[in-house]
């Protein structure tokens, strides 16, 4: 009964968050535009290196697409934090706190709406990539798996953004916190396969960076010859991030909402 109630509350709050996002579409556009820009520019400028043997015959478009998707999911998840800040500033959040809704529902709802938003924009970016000539040898199943990975990665970052928003209650801090985007996105096998990365420290950083495993899982799926190992590692990276940030967000909510 309690679980049902929680699920119903989460759904109501998520639906409202999505409705409000649709009413302010301009908050979503820049992030999608940046992802598409990455896709176009990197593919147009670097596409030729796809002929190197290290790429194993994979078209560069398929190789760079995960970078655009992950950039979109990290940025889209940041919007979940901004949405929470908006509610804190309009004091609507306090109004919601005064209903019998659980604290967990209050933080899970913006995370979920962030995830759904990320899923939708991932589909959009995929469609653009198809228009650019992306081939999907893995078929629709691989495409769906890629969307789920991106959405899951978005959920994880939404948890991070929500926790930071709750702790800081400031739009600027929440904005600043999204700078983790840069090391996470670029200290990895972002542009070339690991074997072509020259600096030793960069290879170490890439191995530590969980984003690398998400890139590798997506690339494996997009290549059409998906190996179980990289896909499983990617799923584990997504689940681990989501579990850690969800836990952090719920813990932050329990602590900071007790007494302001």
């Amino acid at each position, binding site marked *: 009964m309690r679980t049902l*109630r929680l699920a119903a*509350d989460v759904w*109501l*709050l998520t639906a*409202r968050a999505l*409705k*409000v996002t649709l*009413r*302010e579409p301009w908050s979503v556009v820049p992030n999608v535009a940046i992802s598409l820009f990455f896709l176009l520019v990197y593919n147009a400028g670097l596409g030729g290196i796809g002929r190197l043997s290290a790429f194993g015959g994979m078209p560069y478009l398929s190789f760079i697409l995960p970078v655009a998707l992950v950039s979109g999911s990290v940025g889209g998840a940041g919007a979940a934090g901004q949405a929470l800040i*908006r*509610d804190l500033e*309009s*004091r*609507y959040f*306090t*109004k*919601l*706190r*005064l*209903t*019998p*809704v659980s604290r967990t529902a209050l933080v899970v709802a913006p995370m979920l709406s962030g995830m759904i938003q990320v899923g939708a924009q991932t589909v959009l970016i995929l469609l653009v990539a198809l228009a650019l000539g992306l081939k999907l040898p893995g078929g629709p199943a691989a495409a769906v798996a890629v969307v789920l990975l991106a959405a899951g990665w978005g959920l994880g970052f939404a948890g991070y953004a929500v926790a930071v928003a709750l702790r800081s209650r400031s739009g600027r801090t929440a904005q600043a916190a999204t700078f983790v985007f840069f090391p996470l996105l670029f200290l990895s096998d972002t542009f070339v396969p690991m074997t072509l990365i020259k600096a030793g420290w960069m290879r170490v950083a890439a191995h530590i960076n969980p984003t690398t495993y998400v890139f590798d899982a997506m690339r494996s799926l997009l290549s059409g010859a998906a190996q179980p190992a990289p896909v499983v590692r990617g799923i584990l990276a997504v689940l681990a991030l989501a579990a850690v940030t969800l836990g952090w967000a719920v813990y932050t909510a329990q602590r900071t909402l*007790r*007494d*302001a």
Partner: protein
Amino acid sequence: MAEWTETKGTSNLAVTAAGLRKRYADGTVALDGIGLAVSEGEIFGLLGPNGAGKSTALQILTTLLIPTAGQAQVFGLDVVRCQAAVRRVIGVALQETGVDPLLTGVEALELQARLHGARRAEALRRARELSERLQLEGFANRRIAGYSGGMRRRLDLAMGLVHRPRILFLDEPTTGLDPLSRKALWDLVRAVHAEAGTTVFLSTQYLEEADALCDRIAILRAGRIVAEDTPARLKGRMRRDVIELVPADAAHCKALLVVADGVAPGAAIDRETVRVAVADGAAAARALLAAADGAGIALAGLRVAPPTLDDVFIELTRDQGADGTVMPPRLVPDGPFGGGA
């Protein structure tokens, strides 16, 4: 509903509090040990100037803040230990709460009803019913961003009523409203109270408001309750006459105040009238007339009136102000950004 059975002995009291104290992290003591007892069905007012601790008290009673010491119950439910149960019986319109400006009035009301457990159809029906009841019909399907201040207050009130609470908490419900909207809101509060027998617990910095609405008032100053009684009996405590002087030219109000203050210290301006509390009305009236004459200020009127709550308030806060921190009460409502104790 287990909490009800444990505490049935106190449930005829809507609010009880004892030794309630709140010290913020920065060391400010907002509440310095207050006790309250509000009966079911009462309209109770917490009256005081900005910074007296009204908002803090309301936030504790509505489970938003944890007191540093002391305890409080709402219908016998402890506000710290039974937060979820308290939230089901209280309706709230606080300054600390707002509504998402991108939603429409009906959407906000419907969501509020559903979060309180109503089914979809029932929630929508309640949302429509309340928007009609609170005169929001024409705007119910428009975004809240376009609402006027008065409409927002009415929506806030409607949102607090969605789940038919047993008690309604209102934090400075009319601060910043124009006189018409303020009267309209008073009428709504009275109607809600009369129709459903809902207990009302409100805070205000306007004595006029407390006098107009409340059955009983507690006057809060610097975190302590300095007086508690019915408005009539509080006024009865003043065994003094109040003389009202109206200058012929409203521009002379300030000058007249200075003159009157010289005769009887503690004179104050209320709209275009200078009010002075004195021990002996007849003697003071003569002295005041002479003084005004001497200063060359023509008078349009002079009245000896029974004391209002303003006078009680000035008197009480002066008594307590031995430490030199007398805070003058607000006699005239200020602009839209006023308030926020």
